């Protein structure tokens, strides 16, 4: 066990846990942060993606020790009903999902993309989401939603 500190959705957090535990198990377990979803446990589907620093990573494959002193953003920190992120607004506007289980991870991959590339092309979006799996076939709506959010964010 070790005490590890990080910033979670802008708030200082400290947790006593096995440093080799996966970030996902810590988020979903003791921290009750259930937005990141378990899909495969092997960094193959993206359902658990969160942003660490500036990059979307699979929380299931991220050991707790590696996020010490880092900034972590989960879907819970992206926006809320009262203050939605443009991506969340756009996913609603485009009705860009069916079952929605993959969506929290996809939103985080998309948010990381827009941080580093505010004006992505459709191909950029597809490349950024290529490690996220969607089984319902909502891909094209999601790409449209990300482009809509980017356009909205670019409008002063």
């Amino acid at each position, binding site marked *: 066990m070790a005490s590890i500190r990080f910033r979670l959705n802008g708030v200082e957090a400290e947790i006593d846990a096995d440093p080799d535990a996966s970030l996902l198990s810590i988020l979903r*377990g003791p921290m009750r942060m259930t937005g990141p979803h378990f899909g*495969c446990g092997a960094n193959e589907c993206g359902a658990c993606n969160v942003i660490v620093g500036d990059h979307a990573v699979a929380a299931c494959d991220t050991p707790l020790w590696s996020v010490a002193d880092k900034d972590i953003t989960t879907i819970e920190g992206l926006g809320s009903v009262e203050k939605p992120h443009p991506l969340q607004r756009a996913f609603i506007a485009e*009705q860009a*999902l069916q079952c929605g*289980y993959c969506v929290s991870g996809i939103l985080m991959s998309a948010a990381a993309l827009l941080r580093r590339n505010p004006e992505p092309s459709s*191909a950029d*979006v597809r490349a950024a989401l290529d490690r996220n799996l969607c089984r319902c*076939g*909502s891909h*094209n709506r999601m790409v449209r939603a990300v482009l809509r959010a980017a356009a909205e964010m670019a409008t002063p």
Partner: protein
Amino acid sequence: MTRPAPSPSAPKLPVSLAANPTLSSWLRFSPQGHVKVSPGKVEIGQGIVTALAQIAADELDVDIGRVQMVRASTAGSPNEGVTSGSLSVQQSGRAIRHVCAEVRQIFLGLASDRLGVAIDALAIEDGTISGPGNIRTSYWELADEVSLERDATPGAVPKPSTQRTLAGHSIARVDIPDKVFAHRRFIHDSALPGMLHGRVLRSELTAARLVDMPKDRARAVHGLVAIVRDGNFAGVVSQTEEGAEAALGALRRSATWSAGETLPDEDRLAEWLKAQPVESTLIDNRMASQTSETQRTIRRQYTRPYLAHASIAPSCALAQWSGERVRVWTHSQGVYFLRSDLALVLKLPVENITVEHMEGAGCYGHNAADDVALDAVILAKAASGRPVRVQWSRADEMSHAPFGAAMAIEIEADLDAQGEIVGWRHSIWGNGHTARPGRAAQPALLAATELSNPFPRMISTNPPQANGGGADRNSIPLYDFPSWTIESHRLTTMPIRTSALRTLGAQGNVFAIESFLDELAAGRGEDPVAFRLRHLSDSRARDVIKSVAKRVGWKPDQQAGIGYGLGFARYKNTGAYCAVVAEIEGAEDIRVKRLTIAVDVGEAINPDGVVNQIEGGAIQATSWVLKERVRFDRQRITSNTWTDYPILRFSEVPEVEVELIQRPDSEPLGAGEAAHGPVTAAIANAVFDALGVRVRNLPITRDSLIAAMESTS
């Protein structure tokens, strides 16, 4: 002897309502100004609760924001069987429309009494019933005076389509905000007070016996509550999810399993399917009164592999015992059916078991949702009344859940001297396409076969053609051929577990029929659109084909490396009409660039919801066609990761354009499975157009293309 003339179209209740006639089981008003609508169908990501809310709000004239959709539960929901077969709008939608129409009339009648004006003089706006001179009351005011504990009566008349303001419009789905804001809507994210975590130990080997399972290592894992063993079923219960995983890992390292059953040779699947013991059924037979003489007969064989449901979420369930009663939370597609099977396994009356639905990820048919519910029920017995949450691993989800059945399909066409089709024989070999729970005297749940007093493994069967058929779904041609014989040979052995996957056999049959027709048209030098239209008299069928052909400017000019192909079907021959043109490019690796689709679902309750379903179905079918095949060696399923069972990725997804042909006065038809067959065939036909190669064995990969080229040359 004379018979009384049948009364002309006596009004009948919709089928779901006839089975559950009590009005209050479907609809209640709350004094707070809400309408609680309680369907027996469940949300599986298809948007059904929104479509049903639209129907209710429309018929009652209330704002859709007042409609609260109740999750299905055996504690009180109408029993609508299983949410499958693209039937939810047809069954639940018609029932709710009828209930709301009748309840509206009941309230209008009462309001008329109270207000002293004729019903005709009353109007309803957002639940407020008003009449001349500013007199008014409302559903909520009158709710206490009206008992809906009465049976629905035939003859309630819903509004004409022209007076509907919500049905027919693309209302935003009610569940989407929760999902983009990560509110806890999924069963996976739910926690009950005092909840423990369970995991089940399963061998990779098929039907292996658990010979020895030393418990010492697992006992040493922090947080362990119980180790459960009953025959070949074993699992752990822990205070935490990580503890459960760790204890499971410890058990796995210690356990010894016997050899399992032998699996077929995956490279000789068609031969294997055709060599097994079967039950043969004549599906349909049509004899022409006068046929031209057969000049030659062409025979082709098509295959499709086993396909995985491959839900993004591993299956999950919660269970809690209280004495001899158990409560179960599940993402099963049929809460009552699951309850029946649980009762068989537990040897308890169904009244002792409550099964409640909670949303899971898209399942696309009978996946492990029901299996994990029994796992949770068994493990929760060791939890002293505390609730237990069980979640499968990705590997178990990809190897122990039922698969869509592999199929071998042979079609023979007899051609006359002019090359016209005068005879047609279609034969299917494969396992049955359904082994769902709740239908038989034995349970269909995996753990039931593992207990020390095991139930036999259920061999999957096929629903009758009258219910859409199983392996034979869409095997009867919609085309006007003068004669045909359709047969289905269902395997009576089942080394690889199969059950319902989206479309059942329709994807394979439509692939076969539409590929063969394309080949026959090409053999005559006839355009495939013209060829199909010449054999189709159903005007709605013709319309979707003509629409899609017009939209793509059929046929676009030939370009090197680009191909166009057409596929068409009416799902189940009674459901939605769908025609697809695929545009593909490539030589060794095929890329589907664009799918252009025309679809007719009759009345589209939520047009954008229909388009979403068609797009999703088209993309999923493209994934099946280009990538998917359950892999196995002679002992185990080997495709138990996303690496070994790849699905289509964002960069590989085609553009999808959907034209919805609106028919507001026709019965609404489901959209979830309409596109799979036509898309499959359209891609295969486009591959031929581009490369001159007929791929008859799915999936269409580099390997199958090379194999097809070699067999042609």
